[in-house]
């Protein structure tokens, strides 16, 4: 990767502001704690950057997908790879295949919500506007009331805490984290497993369109996938999701 990074000899990795558990622990990616933080250091290592030569920066979701030159070499904040986005930016090979999951609160469950499409249709839905959750919501659940859309995860949880929405669609790890930590009485009601989806939600590291770094990153990801590093990181940082029922 020599000569292809923003700053010679240093890999600049972007994450969200703030970055959320379990992707980054304590909003401090420098620690290497958290799934994406760990993956980033693993990729960097596979590309030949040691830990001291990884610097972090922050971008919003919109900033990351805007076309044009970037302030980072790679950006990891649960970007779903979609063909439309690939028109404007480059994605690495996927480093995680996520299930979509339904985040809700105990009160909604008590009120009779179940992990069935029929039951889910009648809830008031929310999602983060910039993510693929919004279209997935329309396609798979097609709620009766048009969903509310928000700028970021924090706003979605705020709305759910305010009882303005019943449920929201997130990738599973995010949903699990939000349910456990951010949301009082949060519950992950069900999931749409990645294996069953026709085009599963896969996270890739985002790069500038035509980035020279892409082959290196792809190789690095392939390498860490192959040698089991990736699986190890997943086991360490992402909860076992088998407890979450599959939506019928």
């Amino acid at each position: 990767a020599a000569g292809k990074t923003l700053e010679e000899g240093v890999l600049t990795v972007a994450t969200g502001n703030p970055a959320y558990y379990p992707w980054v622990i304590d909003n401090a990616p420098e620690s290497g704690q958290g799934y994406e933080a760990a993956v980033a250091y693993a990729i960097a290592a596979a590309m030949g950057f040691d830990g001291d030569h990884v610097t972090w920066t922050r971008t919003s979701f919109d900033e990351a997908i805007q076309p044009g030159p970037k302030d980072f070499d790679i950006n990891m904040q649960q970007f779903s790879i979609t063909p439309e986005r690939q028109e404007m930016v480059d994605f690495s090979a996927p480093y995680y295949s996520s299930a979509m999951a339904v985040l809700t609160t105990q009160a909604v469950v008590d009120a009779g919500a179940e992990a069935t499409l029929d039951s889910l249709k009648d809830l008031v839905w929310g999602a983060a506007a910039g993510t693929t959750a919004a279209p997935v919501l329309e396609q798979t659940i097609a709620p009766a009331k048009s969903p509310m859309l928000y700028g970021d995860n924090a706003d979605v949880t705020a709305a759910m805490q305010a009882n303005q929405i019943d449920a929201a669609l997130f990738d599973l790890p995010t949903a699990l984290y939000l349910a456990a930590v951010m949301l009082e009485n949060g519950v992950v009601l069900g999931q749409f497993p990645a294996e069953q989806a026709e085009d599963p939600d896969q996270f890739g590291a985002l790069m500038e369109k035509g980035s020279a770094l892409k082959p290196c990153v792809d190789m690095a990801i392939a390498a860490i996938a192959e040698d089991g590093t990736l699986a190890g990181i997943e086991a360490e940082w992402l909860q076992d999701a088998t407890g979450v029922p599959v939506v019928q």
Partner: protein
Amino acid sequence: MTDKAVPSGPTRRALYEARIRRRSALIATLSTALVLAAIIILVPMAPGWEAVKKSFFNGPVLAKTFPGLLNAFLMDVAIFAWCAPLIAVLALVIALCRDVRAPALFPLRLFGALYTDIFRGLPVVLVIYLIGFGVPGLGLPRPWNSPYIWGSLALILIYSAYVAEVIRSGIESIHQSQRAASASLGMSDADTMRFVILPQALRNVVPSNMNLFIALQKDVALLSFIGPVEIFRQAGVYKSLMANFTPYVGAAVIFLALTIPATRYADYLMARQRRRRG
């Protein structure tokens, strides 16, 4: 003696002016055409133009998203429609509060002053976030926690502070002599306000308020930050789906179609008022 001179054909000045007008029109047309031509020919020659065009002026994307945008714009219109009258009423109340003289009602004056100071001092987004997420977060039951209600309330609070100040300035702009004239007829203060001052004050502030309501129509877009999918959010969704900024341009066009005529009309009212006073 017939004083009304019948103009016998065009005068020397009329002829000269017609000539000048023709020449000016010619020059203006030519220079405008030149500039336009330069823009039309040169801009597409710029290196980034293809990218710009694809990203901002993408015909197919526009065609696909425009109906959705228009539809979402109805939401803006609806929010505006229910906020505007409430703002007008609340603003009038606040303005009257600030005009209250009786010492027992001093808390009202204080309230009015605090109210206008605070809500004019805060950024609109901040208030929308605070009220739109904050208040419902206190455990209100549905449907009383709707972001439509609280988001609208945020707009109403802010804009009524501005409108109240405008109304108050209108009240103060009515010359003291009108109050004196009314008082000298034995009218009470309340009657004076209601029949003499307010009707004139409100008429005077129509243009300023028109400008505020245009601003309100635009700030409705900020409600999207707490959930309602109005045109700005809808454009954002399309943008992130298609990674293309054309939907924003579409939204801009929709706004302009509404706000340019409205702004022009407000300007016209303002200018007319200034002329009348000047």
